[in-house]
């Protein structure tokens, strides 16, 4: 009836064939989704009101120059052929040239992506470290003041405009209290002090053993990362709570209690042990969300990541850069989605 029937359902063959079928299905899903993503970005590139030829040859180019460029860009070919060219280029890692600085977009993205990765990773870390215990506590003490506080924290997180919270955070912690570094990744004196290995300043300064730079970078990243962390915290704590509630109401928990196990063992060893896989799925999804959600945060904090890159390119009508950035974020997003799906299927025996 549908092509998304869960693999293994109603089929009682050897586990190997189920595994193979499900692997093929997953690969098929990834391919179709990525093709769809490329198709949509291609369409966006086609309907834009800016003439890509004029933006290269300039307004005053002669008719011959214009036509030559038109043909060189393959625009005289049928649309479907152009789409194949587009896919071929992207498979070769060629996103075209940025109109702003005439450099390959792929190189630009390689440069800015680690900054976003650094921010989103730290944000997710903060969200997990605070969100998971908060969710567990809320579920165990259901209806108590802890549960109410957790609910309130999550509700505010869901409702707050992140760019506004960033501004207020800058105003309070940088402008008034002076506790954190201002916008940017490091202070002006520390730019390019440590050699770039991974592109992530926290990692690079550690590798270099340069604690001064590490501290400065930390003071800059802590505020935006906490903001992103708050958002993933809201989501993670709510999901943890509902997963835990499900477990705490099951009979095996009663059994464990009757056996006389300590409350700590019952909660963390028995109940929590059963939600680990679900939780990792949620964390992967929220990580993907942060990679994307950091767009507005990056703008506020002048963070030179992929979000800033896309937005700057957008405002100057640099379409190659916008679409290249969109494709990369989309691919990472799809991969994390699929990854969390696979994780669920392979590690949770109930899903098989």
């Amino acid at each position, binding site marked *: *009836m549908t092509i*998304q029937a869960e693999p293994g359902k109603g089929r009682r063959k050897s586990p190997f064939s189920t595994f193979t079928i499900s692997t093929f299905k997953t690969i098929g899903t990834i391919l179709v989704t990525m093709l769809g993503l490329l198709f949509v970005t291609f369409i966006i590139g086609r309907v834009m009101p800016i003439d890509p030829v004029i933006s290269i040859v300039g307004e005053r180019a002669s008719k011959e120059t214009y036509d030559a460029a038109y043909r060189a860009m393959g625009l005289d070919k049928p649309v479907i052929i152009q789409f194949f060219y587009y896919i071929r280029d992207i498979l070769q890692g060629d996103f075209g040239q940025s109109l702003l600085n005439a450099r390959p977009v792929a190189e630009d993205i390689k440069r800015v992506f680690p900054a976003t990765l650094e921010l989103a990773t730290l944000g997710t870390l903060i969200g997990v470290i605070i969100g998971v215990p908060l969710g567990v506590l809320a579920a165990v003490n259901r209806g108590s003041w802890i549960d109410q506080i957790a609910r309130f924290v999550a509700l*505010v997180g869901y409702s707050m405009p992140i760019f506004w919270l960033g501004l207020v955070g800058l105003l309070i912690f940088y402008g008034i209290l002076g506790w954190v570094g201002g916008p940017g990744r490091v202070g002006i004196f520390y730019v390019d002090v440590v050699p770039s290995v991974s592109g992530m300043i926290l990692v690079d300064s550690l590798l270099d053993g340069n604690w001064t730079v590490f501290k400065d970078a930390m003071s800059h990243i802590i505020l935006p990362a906490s903001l992103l962390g708050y958002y993933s915290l809201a989501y993670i704590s709510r999901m943890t709570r509902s997963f835990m509630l499900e477990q705490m109401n099951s009979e095996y928990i009663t059994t464990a209690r009757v056996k006389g196990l300590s409350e700590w063992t019952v909660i963390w060893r028995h109940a929590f042990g059963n939600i680990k896989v679900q939780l990792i799925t949620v964390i992967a999804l929220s990580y993907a969300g942060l990679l994307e959600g950091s767009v507005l945060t990056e703008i506020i904090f002048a963070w030179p990541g992929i979000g800033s890159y896309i937005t700057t390119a957008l405002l100057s009508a640099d379409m190659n850069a916008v679409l290249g950035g969109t494709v990369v974020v989309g691919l990472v997003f799809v991969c994390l989605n699929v990854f969390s799906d696979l994780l669920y299927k392979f590690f949770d025996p109930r899903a098989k």
Partner: protein
Amino acid sequence: MSIFSTPHENHSSWRRWLLTDTPTSRNHARVASFYQGWLSFKSNPMAMFGLLILVFLAFVAIFAPILAPHDPFTQDLSNRLAPLASEGHFLGTDSLGRDILSRLIYGARITLYIVLLVALIAPVAGLFVGTVAGYTGGWVDAILMRITDIFLAFPRLVLALAFVAALGAGIENAVIAISLTAWPPYARIARAETLTIRNSDYISAVKLQGAGPLRIIMRHIWPLCISSLIVRVTLDMAGIILAAAGLGFLGLGAQPPSPEWGAMISEGRKFILDHWWVATIPGLAIFMVSLAFNLLGDGLRDVLDPKDSGS
């Protein structure tokens, strides 16, 4: 029928009529179930608080010209960046001397406009795709759901950004971009509902009476999908408001001098360290409205869709 003859007798007979277990007509049953839903909704103070804020927002938006103390576009450069509670300007003025309170009040109209448009476009598109896919089945279902999955796998804000880049900045284009990224979850929900409905006896009965697929989908399947869609739309509204404000903040939504709240934050951003209220106050407004939608959505979910409720 004696109840019908004396509807105005007193308050309690109305209540009895509304709370009856044995409705006398279809409309009676509808009104009664609506009333009972309202009673259980009313017992949730947070949800009522959310509803109150939204009613207030609608009131402010409708009567903006009467409520606003100043014209939202009139500049007064000699009185720029006036602080809170200064004379004639309760919430101060912005960098061009425009009254912030008046701009906030007119901005309510824009917020409501965006919310209503997206709420009209995205769920309807999703409902259509989902019910057609679920009812038709076969390859139509396969193709439609694959497209839905593709859109679902996209990063929403970045995709909306790319759409706006292609279509050009402006409120209408922001609405289209947000709707284009918002419909897939509704299609999923509508399809799931349709799959559970389409094999039920009453659908077979309607079929035997000679109803065509279009009539079955529109008259007999859509009404049953509505309640779960309403819950989802209300809960999504907060995200939609935040997305619209984000686009406005980036300069891709409403264009100046329009008093859109996100754009107002962006204008006030340059003065945040010295004149904090210019950027902070519109943010509070956005926060209140999206909080209200979240509270309302939670309350509606408990009433309309108890099986999903979180508590």
